[in-house]
């Protein structure tokens, strides 16, 4: 009886999850009347806007990861080493992006960094890119911080630091050559999660008016029938790829999987 219910739950759930995926793939193949074809994919891939926006978002995602690592790794390390009492405070701050909706944060950016403010970042394309980058790093902060902090918890930070110092290493070298390689698995899992978040992000990019992949998808969705389904398949494959790589790497490096 119990087993019957369990199977019912699993099968009903699987149907719910599989049907949209099958539906999307099927729909994306329907562009040519009467037969299945890859026309929608061809049309998407041939669109220069697709390449531009996808490229833009990939670069932004990579930069987000770099910025995230630069902010999170030294901070998490330093707090563990020297300022353990600050840990709850930092943890609280890193969780805030889950509480404050992204649309509110970006609304604040627009108000705070407009052209008539002290720091007129939205005045130039470069400045807005920088602002968007910082927004993305903020969105990724909860995931990055938790991943890195979990990674650090498996190390004896104090002994490692003292050993490095007694061999004459400076702070930059300790963090770059000793701590970072040791939490690389954790950093990678945070990085892939950040990548998956940034690559299709819509709200911030749309409101800051940057040519990112998310707003492009939305625009295409409003104007075309079959291409959006093809994009959804591509986006799902990208997310799946990120998560797959993340699990593969954490398994290879033998890092305890971090809870989301």
């Amino acid at each position, binding site marked *: 009886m119990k087993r019957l219910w369990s199977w019912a739950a699993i099968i009903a759930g699987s149907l719910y999850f599989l049907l*949209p995926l099958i539906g*999307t793939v099927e729909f994306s193949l329907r562009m040519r009347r009467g037969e299945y074809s890859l026309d929608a994919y061809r049309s998407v891939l041939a669109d220069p806007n697709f390449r531009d926006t996808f490229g833009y978002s990939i670069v932004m995602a990579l930069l987000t990861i770099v910025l995230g690592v630069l902010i999170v790794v030294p901070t998490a390390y330093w707090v563990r080493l020297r300022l353990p009492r600050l840990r709850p405070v930092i943890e609280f701050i890193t969780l805030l992006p889950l509480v404050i909706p992204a649309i509110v944060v970006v609304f604040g950016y627009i108000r705070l960094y407009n052209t008539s403010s002290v720091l007129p970042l939205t005045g130039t394309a470069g400045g807005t890119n920088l602002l968007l980058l910082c927004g993305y790093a903020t969105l990724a902060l909860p995931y990055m911080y938790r991943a890195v902090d979990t990674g650090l918890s498996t190390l004896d930070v104090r002994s490692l630091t003292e050993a490095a110092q007694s061999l004459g290493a400076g702070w930059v070298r300790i963090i770059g050559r000793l701590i970072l390689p040791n939490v690389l698995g954790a950093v990678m899992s945070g990085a892939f999660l950040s990548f998956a978040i940034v690559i299709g992000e819509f709200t911030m990019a749309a409101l800051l008016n940057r040519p990112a992949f998310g707003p492009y998808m939305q625009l295409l969705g409003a104007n075309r029938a079959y291409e959006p*389904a093809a994009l959804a398949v591509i986006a799902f494959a990208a997310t799946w790829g990120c998560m797959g790589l993340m699990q593969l790497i954490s398994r290879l490096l033998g890092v305890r999987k971090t809870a989301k």
Partner: protein
Amino acid sequence: MRQIGWNWLGVVPFFAFALLFLMLPTMNIVIGAFQNPEGQFTLQNLAGLASPRIVDSFVISIKISLASAVLGCLIGFAMAAAVVMGGVPGWIKAPLMTFSGVASNFAGVPLAFAFIATLGRVGLVTMLLKQWFGINIYAMGFNLLSFWGLTLTYLFFQIPLMILIITPALEGLKREWREAAEVLGASTGQYWRMVALPILFPSLLGTFALLFANSFGAVATAYALTGSSLSIVPIMLFAQIRGDVLQDPHLGYAMAFGMIVVTGLANLAYVIMRTRAERWMR
């Protein structure tokens, strides 16, 4: 003890970043909600939230978030319980967890596309139901661009999030507790009602709060799905920032402030419940 000295310098970059790109922008909105265009203190903006259109948008947003959180919790719990203790073969667990990790991050614009391709007017499921069973769900009043349509779509990331969070909690239920209950003559129903659920209750309620906030702040899926035809709060705010509706910009700050209050309360509940839940997880 007075060694503190220069240690704080190490966290300056982090705090500067958090201040500039998280706290100050949010504070700015909150303060803006209490200011009139001349910069003086006022409660007028918050009073402006009482207009029927905005009240309606908050009501429907909260309803969608509640529905998708309740259903997400129930279905996610059922699936997690089936895998952890339901006698389903063990190999199902790993793919389910991996899939949940992917699906919980598969939100936004592509998710809307997936559901349009499936349950839209010419979507796969819509067509199959019509051809195979003669059921026309659109003639029966179903619409993807509606309360239930949006809820159904949000469940695609809500259920996996529930599975990811609740599976460890279910695995944390000790076998001894069940055996002790059975030795004392408890039925399965009694065990769940009097032992397992009270222990799980804080993590269930906490996850519920997280799911609620998760769907309350979601913009992209709803926007790609409905354009601005369904007036939920994030969509209204989005249109307001874009300059499409509502002439008074300070009303926008008040709406944003309202959103922070709602998600803040939901997450406060989560934090409190989580601290209580962790007592049992030792």
